[in-house]
């Protein structure tokens, strides 16, 4: 039977390095994806995810299982991501003004297609790529806290109570935050939403 996150962390606290490896294996992908969607840069996302694990390791001796492990983990990640977004806002504005309209090469999901290969479903692929880019940009346009709330709610599937603790707000304020975020996404993705409703 798999050990719980809290049990693994308590084992790390008592000096079991292997338990830290298990936590790393369990949470590296969710953390990198969450941070990537927050900071929009793969390299920075990986650096921040490494920092999260390092902070968890450093805090092992003082760890007390007073809350769920994921709440603690994503609180560290969210704080690092929000600080990074605030620190690099000016830099990102400069990049976005000068950036070409072509998809970013750093995006794992948006690699340029070799048109010369005459793949039969290339048109379908391009449509899917444009759709994916539109969704990603709609998420990126959300204010940071709304974005974090949507990502934690949608992709990490955390409880409202847990997300509220991570974002340091009340559960009612979180529900209102999420409602506003979904409203903004609904407007931003209106063409896709209408298309989806027809299906």
């Amino acid at each position: 039977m798999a050990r719980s996150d809290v049990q693994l962390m308590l084992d790390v606290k008592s000096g079991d390095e292997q338990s830290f490896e298990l936590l790393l294996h369990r949470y590296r992908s969710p953390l990198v994806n969450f941070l990537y969607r927050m900071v929009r840069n793969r390299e920075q996302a990986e650096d921040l995810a490494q920092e999260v694990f390092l902070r968890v390791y450093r805090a092992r001796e003082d760890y007390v299982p007073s809350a769920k492990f994921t709440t603690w983990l994503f609180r560290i990640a969210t704080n690092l991501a929000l600080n990074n977004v605030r620190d690099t806002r000016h830099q990102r504005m400069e990049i976005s003004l000068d950036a070409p309209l072509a998809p970013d090469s750093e995006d794992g999901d948006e690699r340029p297609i070799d048109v010369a290969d005459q793949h039969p479903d290339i048109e379908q692929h391009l449509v899917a790529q444009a759709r994916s880019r539109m969704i990603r940009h709609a998420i990126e346009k959300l204010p940071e806290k709304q974005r974090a709330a949507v990502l934690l709610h949608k992709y990490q599937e955390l409880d409202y109570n847990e997300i509220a603790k991570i974002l340091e707000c009340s559960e009612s304020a979180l529900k209102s935050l999420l409602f506003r975020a979904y409203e903004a996404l609904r407007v931003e993705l209106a063409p896709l939403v209408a298309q989806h409703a027809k299906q």
Partner: protein
Amino acid sequence: MSCGRMENKVLSYVDGRLKEGERLEMEKHLASCTACELRVNEFRAVSSLLDEMPQIAPSPAFDVRVRARVAAEPVKQSWWAWLAPSPRVAMAGALLALCIAWVGLRPSNYAVNPATEAEINQNMPVLENYDVLTNFEPLTDLPAPVAQDAPQDVPQGDAPQTSPTM
């Protein structure tokens, strides 16, 4: 349920996280409110569009980097760890015991026999002065020293003048 109250529950409804009673109440409202029903459908569409976002995989070097950073962390040692039996503590203790034993057991070079001590005392000039002073009669006639607290008769004219300063 009013449309305003629905705002806080619409996402929970879309996610299927509402309690049975709340869900039934919501469905009752949706049956009579086209605007809210449309919103629920649109939120469902948004939720399903968000599902289309692809996941990225951490780079192969990710774990290696984390392990390297963890390995570079300084090892913390508490003060109590110093007291735990260890070769270092044992060696320090043994050295200290040896030093104490050496200081306590070594023969003293500074012991003087009584005859030599009497000779030294005889030859000391301070002791000669002491004999002279204790037998010096004029000194016994001196008045007793005046206590510092006692009032002294100082002539008015000789008293130092003080003036207030700014």
